């Protein structure tokens, strides 16, 4: 406990240096500005802004990243409240009540409760992260290669099969990502795989290229093909920005409940912030003293889900930092950001670079506080960003997506991948395949393969090593449950429907 305080203190000493504060500020500002644009969620925000951090030192760039991540999340909720176009599924619950509030002229309090709720939840969750991380790191040190492999199998199952609309499509997405992960030179033997004699492919597929292609190019192709060039109605922020005494009274409990729901679900390798936000929404609906207000702009319906969303985002940093396990598309891209500096998140990073890890955690607190101070006064600016006409908005998104790829690797092959994977993203949207499992499969696949081969090398190829430790067995059991759960749930729902 005391060591955590000391480490966190050192982290703050680093993160409070003027240049690091500047990085956090720029990150928060850019993250919000990009995240507020309709159709851009936090994952794409982080992927689009990654090239900007290329020339910074690792600490500065990761601090900027933390700001971009939190800023992108905040921007998304602003969009959800003001134009009812959630950039990602985790903001959908916010849009339900928030947009109704904005329509009723209570956009100010809706934005305020979202901002303060995000702050409170972010604070609680980051404290949770700071205190949970060291004990998880200690546990992770005792993990064998086989245990790590089992953990990754569990993460694969939960992010692709358990919570999506269709386990078949989720697993197919995951395996497409795993296939892309094979491309390149095998790290252990130097064997070229799926390179087809193209030199550019021997480095493998860049996570950012894939993410930008799937999220930005795929989305642009999809929107263009839908031809829904309907301009969304933006609700002006009328009246006071401030919350009334009653708003405060109705908000503080949902904030806390949302944070307590969001953090553990985000911290488990379960992936996705949709679950806690919708859980929080239905919980608040049940607990609300004025249930008829739900559906017409109940402030609890914004406060709870927004807190849950932010807390689960901070929660996903727990497996990312302590185990090197990304459980959301955003976390996968952040892992790519770490790897670009040759840093591998996991227990070793805490031991080898404590400054960097604790500086990052401290700057999460700082970014959170900056957002609170920055965003409400700047809401006029964000609203103006929302008024960019859709053709120019997508034109700009395409320019930034392509520019990021060119800045990272100005090759025709790399840009060709942007086009090909963009087409794939389009088809995946059209046929309702989830996108996050592809990104996670690409980055986590090679890591899982390394652990598997490490385990099998030690055991001289004896497969029983995979189920030797109680930790592995436990993880496989949970994975099996997670794989079967959706089928059982559907069956139960069908039975229930038959009885009605």
């Amino acid at each position, binding site marked *: 406990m005391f060591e955590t305080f000391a480490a966190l203190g050192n982290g703050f000493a680093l993160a409070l240096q003027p240049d690091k504060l500047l990085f956090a500020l720029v990150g928060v500002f850019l993250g919000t500005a990009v995240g507020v644009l309709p159709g851009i969620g936090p994952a794409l925000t982080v992927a689009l802004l990654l*090239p*900007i951090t290329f*020339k910074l030192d690792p600490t500065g760039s990761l601090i900027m990243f933390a700001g971009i991540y939190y800023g992108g999340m905040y921007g998304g909720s602003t969009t959800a409240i003001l134009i009812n176009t959630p950039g990602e599924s985790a903001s959908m619950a916010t849009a339900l009540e928030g947009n109704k509030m904005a329509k009723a002229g209570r956009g100010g309090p809706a934005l305020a409760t979202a901002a303060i709720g995000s702050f409170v939840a972010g604070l609680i969750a980051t404290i949770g992260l700071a205190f949970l991380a060291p004990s998880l790191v200690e546990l992770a040190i005792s993990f064998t290669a086989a245990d790590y492999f089992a953990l990754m199998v569990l993460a694969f199952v939960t992010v692709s099969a358990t919570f999506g609309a*269709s386990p*078949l499509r989720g*697993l*197919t997405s995951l*395996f*497409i990502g*795993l*296939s892309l992960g*094979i491309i390149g030179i*095998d790290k*252990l*033997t130097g*064997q070229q*795989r*799926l390179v087809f004699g193209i030199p550019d492919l021997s480095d493998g597929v860049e996570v950012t290229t894939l993410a930008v292609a799937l999220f930005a*190019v795929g989305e*642009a*192709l*999809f*929107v*263009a*093909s*839908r*031809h829904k*060039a309907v301009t969304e109605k933006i609700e002006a922020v009328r009246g006071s920005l401030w919350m009334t005494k009653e708003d405060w009274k109705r908000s503080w409990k949902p904030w806390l409940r949302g944070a307590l729901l969001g953090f553990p679900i985000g911290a488990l390798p379960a992936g996705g912030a949709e679950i806690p936000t919708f859980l929080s929404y239905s919980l608040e609906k049940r607990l609300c003293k004025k249930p008829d207000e739900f559906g017409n702009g109940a402030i609890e319906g914004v406060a709870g889900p927004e807190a849950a969303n932010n807390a689960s985002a901070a929660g996903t940093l727990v497996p990312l930092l302590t185990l090197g396990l990304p459980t959301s598309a955003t976390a996968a891209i952040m892992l790519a950001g770490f790897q670009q500096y040759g840093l591998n998140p996991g227990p070793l990073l805490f031991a080898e670079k404590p400054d960097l890890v604790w500086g990052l955690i401290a700057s999460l607190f700082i970014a959170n506080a900056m957002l609170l101070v920055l965003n409400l006064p700047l809401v006029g600016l964000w609203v103006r960003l929302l008024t960019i*006409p*859709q*053709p*120019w908005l*997508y*034109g700009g*998104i*395409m*320019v930034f997506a*392509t*520019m990021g790829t*060119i*800045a990272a690797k*100005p*090759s*025709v092959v790399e*840009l*060709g991948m*942007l*086009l090909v994977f*963009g*087409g794939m993203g389009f088809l995946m949207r*059209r*046929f*309702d395949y989830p996108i996050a499992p592809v990104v996670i499969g690409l980055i986590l*696949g090679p890591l899982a*393969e390394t652990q*598997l*081969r490490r385990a*099998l*090398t030690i055991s001289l*190829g004896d497969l029983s090593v995979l189920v030797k430790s109680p930790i592995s067995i436990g993880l496989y059991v949970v994975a099996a449950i997670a794989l079967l759960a959706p089928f059982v749930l559907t069956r139960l729902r069908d039975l229930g429907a038959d009885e009605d």
Partner: protein
Amino acid sequence: MSELPDTAATRPSPDMGVLLIGIGLIAVAAVILWDASQMTMAPLYAKIGPKVAPNAIAGGLVLFGILTLLGAFRGWFPARDADDWAGAAWVAGGLSFTIAAVGLDIGFIPGMAVLFAFTARAMGRRALLVDLVIGVVIALAVYLLFTKLLSLSLPRGPLERLL
């Protein structure tokens, strides 16, 4: 899953798009298996070498490909509405031009300006020339920001060499 599973199950014709996805997944698996079969390595790695993961992944793709084919006949996939291929073609065309601009040394700014204008056209704008000018201004600003301020190198064509 369609809203009326019973009638969908008896639908006479398979979902052609889904059918093609299933075939595509199996084709990708075949390519991965072929690639793995071309690898030659010391017998030491036979059991735990670089072939293991590709073979396992290809196996998964074949399984999901077969299930997808089944789904095409059983109506497991949601219904889709018609596409406007022209819109998507404008976006893809713009990006293709950008790729050509990088490959053929036409330069960053023209590539980006066309991408911007074509994408705007895809979303329903009908002012290609105006958008091209806007695109040039944006691309120029981005070019100067990236090359002068962040000292990243971007592809240069005749226009960029003047800057």
